[in-house]
């Protein structure tokens, strides 16, 4: 390989790296932008609880969906192997805020066709919110291995007109 070829390779390499690093900068900016503008679907920890008392004490002892003004708030228990409340019904176009925790092992709380995807960890309460723009049935899926009944740990949320 002569000197000239070597110089060509170095030039191409510089170009490739500038392109690559440039793309990475673009990605990071986009991520920061989506965080700032669509942050509601990012799970946030709101409090820590005693997992062994989730079923008997506090907000989660009474799992429910309630209407607060024009919005909804849901307190959801993800347990082996189901969700409580087992089915939720909300109106289209209203914001739903979910608080989710587990009384036993880790679970998932994923709502298909949305960005809601929570790692449910015993002892941690996660908050996410979403506004359903289309009516229909949305499957809620446990996507963290939780034991023999894991695959059947499926529920749904019904969005009405």
């Amino acid at each position, binding site marked *: *390989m002569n000197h000239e070829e*070597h110089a060509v*390779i170095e030039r*191409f*390499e510089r170009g*490739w*790296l500038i392109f*690559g690093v440039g793309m*990475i900068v673009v*990605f*990071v900016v*986009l*991520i*920061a932008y*989506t*965080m700032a503008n*669509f*942050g509601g*679907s*990012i*799970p*946030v*920890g*709101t409090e*820590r609880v*005693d*997992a*062994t008392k989730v079923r008997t004490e506090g907000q989660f002892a009474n799992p429910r969906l309630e209407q607060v003004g024009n919005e909804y708030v849901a307190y959801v228990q993800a347990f082996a192997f189901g969700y409580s409340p087992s089915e939720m019904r909300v109106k289209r176009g209203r914001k739903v805020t979910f608080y989710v925790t587990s009384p*036993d*092992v*880790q679970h*998932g709380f*994923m709502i*298909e066709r949305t*960005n*809601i*995807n*929570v*790692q449910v*960890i*015993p*002892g*941690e*309460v*996660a*908050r996410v919110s979403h506004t359903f723009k289309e009516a229909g049935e949305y*499957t809620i*899926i*446990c*996507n*963290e*291995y*939780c*034991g*023999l*009944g*894991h*695959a*059947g740990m*499926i529920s749904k949320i019904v969005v009405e007109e």
Partner: protein
Amino acid sequence: MAVRTLPRLDAYAGNPEKKLTLYMLMLGFAALLLGTLFGPLQSFNYGGLDLYPYLKPLIQSYYQGLSLHGVLNAIVFTQLMAQALLVYFPARELGYRPNMTLAWVSWWMAFVGLAIAAIPLLLNAASVLYTFYAPLKAHWAFYVGAAIFVLSSWVSVYIVLQMWLRFRRENPGKITPLVTYMSLIHWLMWFLASLGLVVEVAVFLIPWSFGWIEGVDPLLMRTLFWYTGHPIVYFWLLPAYVVAYTILPKQAGGRLISDPLARLAFLMFLLFSIPVGFHHQFADPGIAPGWKFVHTVLTMMVAVPSLMTAFTLAASLENAGRARGGKGILGWIRALPWNNPSVLALLLGLLAFIPGGAGGIVNASFTLNQAVHNTTWIPGHFHLQVATLVTMAFMGTAFWLVPHLTGKPLVKPGLAWASMWLWFIGMFIMTFALHWMGFLWGIPRRAHIAESPAAMAAYQDSLPWMVMNIISGIILFVAAIFFFYVIFATALQAKRDFSEHQEIPFTEAVSKPEGNALALMTDRVWFWFGVAAVLILVAYGPVLLQMFTNLNPVPGMRLW
């Protein structure tokens, strides 16, 4: 010397390190064989076909099979390959013999640890998958065995460090040779990276499994696990990169374009492999989004050395193709020795690494990850990375390394060649299907869906993709039979011939390190080791401190 059989004890008298390397390799391939047998069963599951009922009472559940698949393939096989290759290669490059006592200590620790962990795994007492998330609680033997197995890698760290220090002592002022440099960086990175797992298992899970402590904090356990759990993928990948940088170009008939840039890439892996673990915890409550963003940026940084690698390897392969008479813009690709199974394995593996890397950028993107977290997209991604490039690099290496170590010629090279094509095609079909099933329908990863009517009803729209899983499972099963036949038939044959003994085909570099400012800078190993440690402290320190001082323990459970 004519072809003859040698008494078993004599064959390695002059090269005890060859015997050790062979034992590491073969233990690894034995683990891979057992783990891989469960692979098609997993892909059939994602095709809606459940074969697990037929395995009772030997294997109790899908999750037991999946635990064996994950532990044996991702933890055991990969570590043993690193312990085989990245101790032997630097020893050969430097012309040193590794400390053989310690080397056998490392092999026995790996073997004993594996045996202890295997008992509960095989008895369905540790069906906690390879992430063993608390509060699912396995039998204590699983954690004890895993700890001994992982600690055996620290012995390998020490052996390579010893050889490097001896080189420095005997060659003052000389730059570390490339293969040794890469191996050393790999082991130092792993030492820092493995601390999370070691603390998790030794300080928390073992006392917990013995009943000495009531509970463990699941969030802290996850955090410690992923502290190790992301850099572990570079622990798997870097041995494959060592082969791709320092052996592949020569086998393809060319030279490595730049030695200093190869060092820079490895140095960046030392710095950026570890402080990135939160990108596995984007969906976790209990870690502030700001910290997750910091890890996002650092994760993006770790893409840079792989981008550099892509360029350098492609340029080196072009150099090889042109040296073999390839002409035109793409003619050099055809001129590469595609008929050599070792070269083929890496070429195909590297090809799969391109979509694999692009998917990795998606996973690393905090907000985008919400769409794919814990779906089949994730196993789709890492089967392109670890099960295609990394595994194929080790398989391709075995095709020449086993003959090199044993003096036994490769049995049926045609079958070896076919096994690599089938492996690549099977993995490509399977990962393609898994990516889309996860992304489009949110189908969860590691779920026994074939057994659950509710699940199959919920995911029925993805039927065409499910069929692809079944097809790929069959192709991969055939590929595995071909591969393991070739490897074990080669190693177990009686024919031995050391007359054609060949040295390891280390590649020559076009740009040399001597006198190069960049190479000299990267050779300040302890300085960079310190920088890596500081980066970890900054990215993890405050969060870990807060977690350790606010433990929220939860009792263990067995739900399988």
